[in-house]
């Protein structure tokens, strides 16, 4: 059993390593405005190896190739963070210290701004999406009334509404939340609608036969049944909300990760751009994995019903 586990893990590692290798080699081929490697010339280790390989062909590498990871670390400004923390923590406690440290790091500050935006928009979408979806499960007439509109809006690119939001509501925090909200809402609604459609009348019949109260009908049947559909919708919603988040940060008032992306690209700092892309991808992947984990843990029965 252990052998099997390490077998699979070693394959994952191999795959990561291969990809990173390709990335690294490609990065050294182009100048720093066009592409950047993972480690690059800031890392003595990678630099030495690259020079050695170049030496084999009788060449030397003259220009610097800033690496993505070193750039990530410098944007993190680890040293400044530590300083800022210790400056404040002594007097005002370590929560204030953490806040100052986060602000000292361009990267962390950006990430925390983005996350605030993301969570606000997503939470609103989840709240409204789940509730409306469950209401549609309980009230078939409501579902019939709304379903085609939900399908239509699901197929419409919400990005097309960004210019309107910009013109009508402005470009501060709450208009951006609106963008994220709209991006996230329809996948959630679409999937909970799917749940509402497939709710078998037999379940409601059983609850009637056992004289269930309305409240129990919801807690015993409606909510547990539509929840897995909601989670699928949440996963899609997260993906779209990330797009909405970055899009609103780029197209409305620059802030957060979107701002980092734009400013680094304007400075032709490819390593910085790749670092920002990596961060936001890792954020997305982590969120998705968490939702999947939650699904597997709490919603095992789903596979059988499908």
């Amino acid at each position, binding site marked *: 059993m252990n052998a099997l586990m390490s077998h699979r893990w070693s394959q994952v590692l191999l795959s990561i390593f291969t990809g990173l290798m390709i990335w690294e080699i490609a990065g050294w081929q182009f100048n720093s405005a066009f592409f950047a490697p993972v480690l690059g010339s800031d890392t003595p280790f990678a630099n030495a190896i690259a020079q050695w390989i170049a030496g084999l062909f009788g060449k030397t590498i003259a220009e610097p190739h800033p690496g993505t990871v070193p750039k990530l670390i410098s944007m993190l400004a680890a040293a400044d963070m530590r300083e800022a923390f210790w400056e404040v923590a002594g007097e005002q406690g370590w929560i204030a210290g953490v806040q100052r440290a986060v602000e000292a790091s361009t990267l962390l500050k950006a990430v925390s701004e983005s996350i605030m935006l993301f969570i606000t928009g997503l939470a609103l979408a989840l709240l409204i999406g789940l509730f409306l979806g469950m209401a549609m499960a309980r009230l078939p007439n409501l579902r019939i009334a709304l379903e085609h509109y939900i399908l239509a809006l699901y197929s419409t690119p919400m990005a097309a509404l960004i210019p309107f939001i910009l013109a009508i509501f402005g470009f501060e925090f709450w208009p951006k939340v609106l963008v994220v909200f709209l991006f996230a809402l329809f996948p959630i609604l679409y999937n909970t609608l799917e749940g509402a459609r497939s709710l078998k009348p037999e*379940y409601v*019949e*059983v609850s009637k*036969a*056992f*004289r269930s109260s309305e409240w129990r009908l919801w807690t*015993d*049947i409606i909510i547990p*049944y539509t929840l897995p559909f909601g989670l699928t919708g949440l996963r899609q919603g997260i993906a779209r909300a990330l797009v909405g988040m970055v899009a609103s940060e780029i197209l409305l008032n620059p802030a957060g990760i979107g701002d980092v992306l734009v400013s680094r690209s304007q400075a032709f700092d490819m390593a910085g751009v790749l670092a920002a892309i990596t961060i936001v991808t890792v954020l997305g992947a982590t969120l998705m994995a968490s939702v999947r984990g939650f699904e597997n843990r709490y919603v095992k029965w789903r596979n059988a*019903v499908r």
Partner: protein
Amino acid sequence: MSANAARITISGLGKSYGSLNVFRDINLQVGDIEIVSILGPSGCGKTTLLRAIDGLLPYDEGEVRIEGQLVREPLPGVAMVFQHFGLFPWKTVARNVAYGLELARAPKAEIREKVPYFIELVGLKGFEDCYPYELSGGMQQRCGFARALATEPNVLLMDEPFGAIDAQTREILQFELLRIWNMRRTSMVFVTHSIEEAVLMGDRVIILKGRPSTISDVIAIDLPRPRSRETLQSPRFAQLREQVWATLVDDVKRAEFVLNPA
């Protein structure tokens, strides 16, 4: 069979869907210790009738009274077992069995006592924490029984409970049900389209036929209780089965004649 007081009284019951009259003029009494089998061909409305008796569907004429109370919605003390099982896939066996008790706001201690008892009664001991999808059809229906029995109802309504179950398991479950009923004899209405099943289970077989359906015949089943596999071999069983068959098939023969007048 001693005369027993009527627990269910159905008088002049009728139901229509729009202009389609499903059944009419149903008059039936079910005693307080009795199993009544309702038998009829597919589409004769026996399932609809059962749901009307339970109060799940509204009826248009006549009335149903259970223990004197008029039925307009499902009453406490009446429990139903469904052909589709109707177990909640997201609840374990134990939670499914506890469902009726929880809805009736039974105290937790009572639930903790009763649920394991009924799970064991139906032969599902050891499967308390399993989910329905992990169980076979027969086991799921056992769970359905336990759920209905846990509320200790005076009236059990069975809607073709073995319709979705394979033949072998069906036989086993029929005798299981009889055994369980025997432990606490009360009123049961058993809907089926199988003649053998109707005769095996019931004290009376009510035959529903016609368009619209009405009770065309009531055949008393005088087989002794408790019934077992031996009952199936007895000559009386065969006689009764033939009698029921003859009564039912009358209709079919007539229909054949009408379709093929030549």
